[in-house]
């Protein structure tokens, strides 16, 4: 009797967990650990079965010779800081606006969220046209210098061009999270603060912000990790140009592997990238979590 029950438990475990475990291991875990091995080989992608062990050569090369990788790293870091700051500021302001007593708040929420459902590649190409043709048309008509810049043609306009599109795409999503959090702040607390003579700014700083810290943690985490892994917008908007001035790490890894065919070197970069992402996101969550308080 006990045996049969045990057998049935085994079968259940296999049926319910088996498929998920199998495919997850095959698609995520296995490649992840293979990555550690390929980091130390001269695997060239063509000859996939003959990855030669080269020890620390790849890492040495990345740390001493590969200026392009480090310029991609630096670009991605700067981009992440700018994109995270602007996105969260914009989405928080939008959320504050849409938690007021507006008649059109439902429609406005839909509009602000709309860009988020379209993929980064398509959005990038739509904006490519706007930067290249649309802005110059507006610039000619109005004479405003901002529109007459050589958009996407210089490192600075390429950088800010991607930031603008990133914000446009992501702000609506973060706005939804902030709205949910703001609506959860107890009305009595705001009322009490108001009776105590606190102004709008003071209420925001001392009541609203501390109480929505969990939402801030989530939004900072999502925007940081998305910005750091940015790929589609980069490919469609600037392709890393002019030169390699706006090449992100993700694009650099992709090209090292699939364009240059240096899979071993690409994998070594991908592992450095993994530790970078893990370090940055975990630190950020740890720092903001500490600031969370109970109502």
């Amino acid at each position: 009797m006990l045996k049969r029950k045990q057998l049935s438990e085994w079968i259940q475990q296999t049926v319910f967990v088996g498929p998920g475990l199998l495919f997850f291991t095959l698609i995520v875990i296995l490649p992840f650990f293979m990555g550690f091995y390929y980091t130390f080989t001269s695997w060239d992608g063509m000859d996939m079965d003959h990855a030669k062990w080269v020890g620390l050569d790849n890492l040495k090369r990345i740390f001493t010779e590969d200026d392009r990788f480090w310029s991609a790293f630096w670009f991605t870091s700067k981009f992440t800081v700018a994109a995270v700051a602007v996105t969260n500021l914009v989405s928080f302001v939008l959320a504050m606006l849409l938690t007021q007593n507006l008649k059109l708040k439902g429609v406005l929420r839909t509009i602000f969220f709309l860009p988020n459902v379209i993929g980064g590649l398509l959005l990038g190409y739509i904006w490519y046209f706007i930067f290249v043709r649309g802005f110059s048309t507006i610039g000619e008509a109005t004479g405003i210098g901002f529109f007459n810049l050589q958009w996407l043609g210089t490192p600075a306009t390429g950088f800010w061009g991607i930031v603008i599109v990133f914000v446009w795409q992501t702000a609506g999503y973060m706005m939804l999270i902030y709205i949910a959090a703001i609506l959860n702040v107890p009305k009595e607390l705001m009322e009490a603060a108001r009776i105590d003579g606190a102004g709008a700014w003071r209420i925001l700083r001392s009541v609203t912000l501390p109480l929505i810290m969990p939402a801030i943690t989530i939004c900072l985490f999502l925007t940081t990790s998305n910005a750091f892994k940015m790929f589609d917008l980069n490919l469609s908007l600037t392709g890393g140009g002019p030169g390699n001035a706006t090449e992100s790490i993700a694009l650099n890894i992709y090209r090292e592997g699939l364009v240059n065919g240096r899979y071993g070197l690409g994998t070594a970069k991908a592992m450095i990238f993994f530790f970078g992402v893990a370090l940055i996101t975990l630190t950020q969550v740890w720092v903001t979590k500490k600031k969370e308080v109970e109502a």
Partner: protein
Amino acid sequence: MEEKKRYTGGVLVLEIIGILVALLFLSPFYFLIVNSFKKLAEILLNAAKLPEVFSFSNFKRAWIAIDFPTVLMHSVVVTGLSVLALVIVSSMTAYRLVRRPTLFNKILFNVLVAAMIIPFQSVMLPLMRITALFELRGNLHGIVICYLGFGLPLSMFLYHGFIKSVPYEIEEAAVVDGASPYGVFLRIVFPLLKPITMTVIILNVLWIWNDYLLPVLVINDSFTTIPLAVQKFFGQYLRKWDLAMAALTLSTIPVVAFFLLLQKHIIAGITAGSVKG
């Protein structure tokens, strides 16, 4: 429920600011749509004006140039099958992990959650090797399996959180009535998961439909989806704005239609998903 407030002048000002910002948010769509009706010369002359005549000829040419019916079908099939597989597999996995918290299952849960931090680019090159080795490259089941692997952690996590709140007594009663463990899951538990299933479907549809990198690595030419077709198209016709804008409009319509039709569910689902995630 929100308390009733008076509609004051201050709120009216905020309303107007909101409308102006919304127009700014919509302006890229204005450029996209008006220019897909124009002739190339008209676009080059002035990209901001309305078209002199609304002509569908760009759409006709773009329709053929990117083979729109085929790529649309590919996107629908890839997204549909992958999401279906994800819903089935991740709900079953999560159910078992909640109801039988053995040491193995607890470790598995933590590994799945931890894996969410691995960026796709970190595994993509070795994944090329795996997909070649197991003949998952260039075919439909290959990409579905890849999406299953990458999507499982988040979907499982969402189901896990939800199943914890489903009372166990309902299942016990069914077992007493003679239902098998599989019957209990299929007929009793799974229907109760409907709200979170909606969230899982929406998040995964938006992700897989718009994904570029995984399909370009795994199925590329044999099963071109919309993002791949757009990328290829821009490689060829970069400055043919008239065709390009029409192709982009066509490619944007399905997902925007999906959003506008289901916007209530989507906004609720996304809010639920991210607050738990």
